[in-house]
């Protein structure tokens, strides 16, 4: 472990996680409000202004930040104080860790090139349940507890099918390392079609997206939050605690976009251009930019779904997870295995 290695890693963490992802998450809070409003034929927030500039409401995330830093941090009577303050961190930190294995550019442009790539993501995202359950339990509130129970049940059920959905990808590309998967997606099928995950695993992509959105607990799967009946695991949180839960939710949108882009949309690959990622120079910059574009597009796509679909009923969520997604992902694995056995 040389000093250069440490410095380089720190630079990558700073650039990718802190600058790109966290700032993107802050901007996504603005995108979410603005997008919902223009889908519903409204204008949306546009009043926060600095020196007379309004910038389409882009200052609202800043105003939100100032507000949540200065508001009173309320702790309900009977709450377990330590856990109450730890829970938002338990929600935020695993989400941030998941970015560590995402290759955002060719070659060394990944914070940690783990061989167990995707397995690490699953393991670390499984930690997210702690944030939910601890937040709900430590609040000493029945509604928060109900939300936490819903959240835990939902996350556990969908984690199963989310894991099984990407087995097809592992089988096709022969690795669980995200870097290797992106590298393998540079191949061409029949000499012209980029062998992206969505081409070889279309059903896998749809199932993965559904499972991942359910895992993220956003509408149409927002039962643990239940805004309309105020059953939510963070119902007792105010100020920064609440903001941290919100931030981790938006970060999770970005994680899903990053993972989906990596597994199904070729990561940083630009079709027919430098598939090995050794060209360097401006091509590398273009590849990083293209990865960022894919992530932005997938974030936008998730928001479009979120503002299109009404919420499921709780029993529908459960039966969708266990009776539809699970058999379909098993069938997907079987079909992939049969095709691979016949072709390869």
């Amino acid at each position, binding site marked *: 472990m040389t000093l250069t290695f440490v410095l380089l890693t720190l630079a990558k963490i700073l650039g990718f996680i802190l600058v790109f992802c966290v700032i993107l998450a802050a901007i996504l809070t603005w995108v979410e409000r603005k*997008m919902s409003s*223009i*889908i*519903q*034929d*409204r*204008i949306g927030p546009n009043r926060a202004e600095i020196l007379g500039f309004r910038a389409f409401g882009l200052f609202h995330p800043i105003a939100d930040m100032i507000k949540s830093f200065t508001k009173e941090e309320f702790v309900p009577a009977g709450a377990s104080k330590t856990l109450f303050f730890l829970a938002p961190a338990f929600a935020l930190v695993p989400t941030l860790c998941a970015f560590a294995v995402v290759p955002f550019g060719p070659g060394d442009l990944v914070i940690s090139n783990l061989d167990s790539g995707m397995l690490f993501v699953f393991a670390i995202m499984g930690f997210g349940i702690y944030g939910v359950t601890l937040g709900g339990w430590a609040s000493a509130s029945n509604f928060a507890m109900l939300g936490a129970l819903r959240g835990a049940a939902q996350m556990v059920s969908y984690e199963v099918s989310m894991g099984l959905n990407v087995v097809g990808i592992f089988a096709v590309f022969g690795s669980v390392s995200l870097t290797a998967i992106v590298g393998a997606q540079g191949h061409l099928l029949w000499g012209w079609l980029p062998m992206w995950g969505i081409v070889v695993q279309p059903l896998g992509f*749809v199932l993965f997206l559904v499972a991942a959105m359910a895992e993220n607990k956003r509408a149409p799967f927002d039962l643990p939050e239940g805004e309309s009946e105020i059953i939510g695991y963070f119902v007792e949180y105010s100020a920064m605690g609440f903001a941290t839960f919100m931030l981790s939710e938006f970060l999770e949108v970005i994680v899903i976009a990053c993972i989906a882009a990596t597994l199904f949309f070729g990561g940083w690959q630009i079709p027919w251009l430098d598939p090995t990622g050794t060209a360097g120079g401006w091509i590398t910059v273009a590849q990083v930019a293209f990865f960022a574009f894919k992530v932005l597009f997938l974030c936008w796509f998730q928001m*479009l*779904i979120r*503002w*299109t*679909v009404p919420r499921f009923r709780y029993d529908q969520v459960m039966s969708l997870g266990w009776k539809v997604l699970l058999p379909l992902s098993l069938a997907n694995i079987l079909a992939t295995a049969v095709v691979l056995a016949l072709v390869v």
Partner: protein
Amino acid sequence: MVKVKVVERPPADLVVQSWLPELWKGMKVSGRHFFVNLLTQKGIVTSQYPEVKRAYPPRFRGKHRLMRREDGSVRCVACFMCSTACPADCISIVAGQRDDENEKFPVTFEVDFIKCVFCGMCEEACPCDAIRLDSGVHRAPAYTRKEELNGKEDLLSLGSLSVARQGGEFK
């Protein structure tokens, strides 16, 4: 016997149940709204309130005003028709005798805007067009209940001349 017409549910065939085609239709609608409003702002119905104000409809009922006679004095003859008609019981009048003619006038005339529902019954009940709700002024919010009690001076300050001859001639 009540006749009940049973409407058959459309059968949920595999296309509907598989859910994705329907989701796609919904996404096309929200996507259309997104791009149309992003690029042209055509569908947006919001008006930027403090800068852009909408004209009120002509029959908007705002704060009450007390009308005046040609000599500028109050038209009201303190007949209590309005306070009797008022469903919210929010008009309180103390009547007095005019010096110049054999007629009453309101010594005080108070409308409690906390209670008022702006129904316009007082306006309809008044026999001499003395009270109207056509001022176009909103009832403003206040910090104390007392500020919401609008007295004769406030109501008269919104008022203007009325020469209606309802209820016969007057000198």
